[in-house]
C-alpha cells in the first residue's frame, strides 16, 4: 500500500499527474479559512498540474468539524488546527496519507515532524503556524510596554483603547496564562478567578472583535489589539511604530494542518496538492502572503526580507519557552469555559 502511494505520488510529481491517475477527474476541492492562500499560487498549481481548484471557506474549526460530521462529502483538502485533529481522527473523519512519504515530505521541519496531535504525521501535513499575542502602537503609548499580559488585562491609561478577539478559547486561554491556571481546568473555583479577571477587564475594552483587526489598529480606533501574529505583521508593515508582544506568562502556539477528509472525491489530487505546498519555494509564497510562518525546511531563502526580519512572524529563539501549544480540553472543561464566556457577556 505504502509503496504504491509513494510510486503514484512520485509518478504524479514527475509527469504532473499523469497516466496513473487517469481515473480521477482533474479537480481538487479545497475547504479553507478565508484569504489563507494567494490566488497566484493556486493558478500556478493549475497551470503546472492541469488540476482545477474549487475553493469554499469556513470560519471556525468547529464549523469544519460540524460540516464533516454532518456528512459533507466532496471536500478534498481541509486545514484543521492541531488541537482538533485528534477528535477528527477519532471520529473517522480524516484519511491516512502518510505525509513524510510524499516526494516533498522530507522537507517537514524537525520540530513539526512528530506532533503530539498526529504522531508521525500519518493524517496531516503542516501548513502555517503562529501565535496569538498582542499588538500595540507605541506612538499611542509613548513608552515600550512590558512583555506581559498585564498590559492587556490592566490597561490603565489605555482603557477604552483596547480590543480583545471575539473568541471564547483565545480570551479564556490568555486569562489562564496570566493567572497561571491550566487552560483546560475543570475546577469551578479556578473558573471563577478567570471570570473575575475578565469581568474586571471588560469595561476597559472597546469591543470583542475577530474581524477587521488590522484596520482597527491602523485607523487608530484602538491602541492595543489581542491579535493573531499574521495580522500583527500586516499592521507592522503599514505602521513601523507597531510592536508585537510575546507575553512572558505564556502565549498560545497554534498550528494549522493540511488533511484529507474520509469522504474526499479526489484523494490522489489532494496528495498532489499537499505535496505541492510542501515545496519550500511554494510555501514561502504563502508565508509572504499571510504573514504566518510555515514548517518547511529550506523555505527561508524565499521569504521576503520584511517577513524574515519581523519578530512577529520569524520568532526570535529566546521566546521559544513561552510557547504553549493549543490543546483540546475535556468536555467538562469546555462546558465550564462556555459558561464563563456566557456569564461574561450575559
Amino acid at each position, binding site marked *: 500500500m505504502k509503496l504504491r502511494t509513494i510510486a503514484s505520488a512520485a509518478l504524479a510529481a514527475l509527469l504532473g499527474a499523469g497516466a496513473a491517475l487517469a481515473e480521477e477527474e482533474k479537480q481538487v476541492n479545497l475547504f479553507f479559512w478565508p484569504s489563507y492562500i494567494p490566488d497566484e499560487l493556486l493558478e500556478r498549481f493549475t497551470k503546472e498540474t492541469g488540476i482545477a481548484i474549487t475553493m469554499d471557506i469556513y470560519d471556525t474549526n*468547529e464549523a469544519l468539524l460540524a460540516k464533516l460530521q454532518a456528512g459533507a462529502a466532496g471536500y478534498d483538502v481541509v486545514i484543521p488546527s492541531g488541537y482538533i485533529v485528534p477528535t477528527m481522527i477519532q*471520529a473517522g473523519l480524516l484519511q491516512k496519507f502518510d505525509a513524510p512519504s510524499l516526494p516533498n515530505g522530507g522537507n517537514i521541519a524537525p520540530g513539526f515532524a512528530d506532533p503530539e496531535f498526529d504522531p508521525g504525521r500519518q493524517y496531516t501535513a503542516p501548513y502555517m503556524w503562529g501565535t496569538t499575542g498582542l499588538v500595540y502602537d507605541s506612538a499611542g503609548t509613548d513608552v515600550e510596554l512590558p512583555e506581559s499580559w498585564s498590559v492587556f488585562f490592566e490597561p490603565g491609561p489605555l482603557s477604552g483603547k483596547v480590543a480583545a478577539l471575539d473568541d471564547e478559547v483565545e480570551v479564556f486561554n490568555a486569562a489562564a496564562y496570566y493567572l497561571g491556571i491550566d487552560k483546560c481546568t475543570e475546577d469551578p*473555583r479556578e473558573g471563577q478567578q478567570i471570570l473575575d479577571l475578565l469581568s474586571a477587564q471588560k469595561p476597559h475594552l472597546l*469591543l470583542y472583535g475577530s474581524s477587521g483587526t488590522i484596520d482597527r489598529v491602523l485607523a*487608530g480606533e484602538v491602541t492595543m489589539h489581542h491579535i493573531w501574529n499574521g495580522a500583527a505583521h500586516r499592521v507592522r508593515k503599514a505602521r513601523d511604530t507597531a510592536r508585537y508582544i510575546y507575553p512572558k506568562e505564556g502565549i498560545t502556539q497554534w498550528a494549522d494542518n493540511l488533511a484529507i477528509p474520509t469522504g474526499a472525491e479526489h484523494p490522489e489530487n489532494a496528495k498532489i496538492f499537499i505535496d505541492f505546498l510542501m515545496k519550500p519555494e511554494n510555501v514561502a509564497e504563502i508565508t509572504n502572503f499571510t504573514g504566518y510562518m510555515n514548517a518547511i525546511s529550506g523555505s527561508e531563502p524565499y521569504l521576503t526580507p520584511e517577513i524574515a526580519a519581523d519578530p512577529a512572524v520569524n520568532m526570535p529563539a529566546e521566546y521559544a519557552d513561552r510557547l504553549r501549544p493549543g490543546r483540546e480540553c475535556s468536555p467538562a472543561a469546555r462546558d465550564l469555559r*462556555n459558561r464563563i*464566556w456566557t*456569564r461574561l457577556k450575559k
Partner: protein
Amino acid sequence: MSTAASVAGRRRAGLAAPAILCIAFFMGGPMCIMVFVSLVERAPDGGVIWGNFTTDAYKQFLFEENLLGETTLNADYLRIYLRSALLAGFTVLATLIVGFPTAMYIAMQHPRRRALLIFFLSLPFWVNLLVRNYAWLLLLRANGLLDQAAMALRLTSEPLNILYSNTAIAIGLTYSFLPLMVLPIYAAMEKFDFSLVEAAFDLGASRWQALMHVIVPGVKGGIVAGCLLVFIPGLGSYVTPVLLGGSKSLMIGNLIETQFAAARNWPFGAALAFVLLMMVMAAALLRAALLRKSRRAKSSNP
C-alpha cells in the same frame, strides 16, 4: 351540486398541496427533529446520542450546579433572552415612529409617485444585510465619517463613541428593518378611505384625535403585521450584534451559534432555539388575539 363543489374543492386543494407539503416537509421536519434533539443526550464532541432521552438541556437553561453540587437558579440565559426581546421591542418602536408617518406620507401622494417612492424605499432592503451593517460600521466608528461631519459642523469636539454599544445595534436594526414596517402599513393605508378623516375634522376632531381614533384603528392590521415582521428578525438577529455591538453582550442568535461552535452542545443549542420559537409563537398568537378583538369590536359596533 354539493358533490361537484367538493370535487372542485378537492382539485383546488390539490393545487395548494405542493406548496403546503414542501413547507410541511422542509420546515415541519426540521422543527420536529430540533425538538427531538433538544431532548436527547449530547455526544462529547458535538452531535448527539440518539437513543438517550433527557431534559438536561432545558434544565441547563434555568439551573446550574454550584460549587457544592447544589442546584441553583441561573439567570444568565434568561437575561440574554430578555435583552434580546427588549432590543427587538425597541426596534419595533423606533421603526414604528419613523415608519408610520412615512407610510402615511406615501399613501397620500399621487399613485404614480407612490410607486416610485415605494421603489426607493425598498431599494436599500435589497442590499445584503452584511453590507448594510458594514456601511454603518464605516459611519459610526470613532473618528469615522459621522464624527468627522459632526466635528466639521462644530457640533462636538470629541468622538461620539456610538459604535460598539447597544445604541449602535438599535440604529443598525432600525435601519435594516424599516421597510418591513413601512410596507404593511402602507398597504393598509392604500385601502384606507381618507374622506373619513375629513369627516372627523368636520365633526370638530383635533389632528391628534383624528389620528388616534380614525386613522390608527383603520390601519391597525397593517401596524400589527409590521410590528411582528420587525420583531421576529430583530429577536433572532445575529450579524448586527457582532458587527455593530462589538460583541460585548450576547444576543439569542449568537448564544445559539456558540452552542454549535465552541461549546459543541447541540441539544442545548436546539433547546435554546426551541425557546426562541415559543417566544415568536407567543408574539404571533398575541397578534391573532388583537385582530380577533378588533374584528369583534367592529362587528358589534358597526
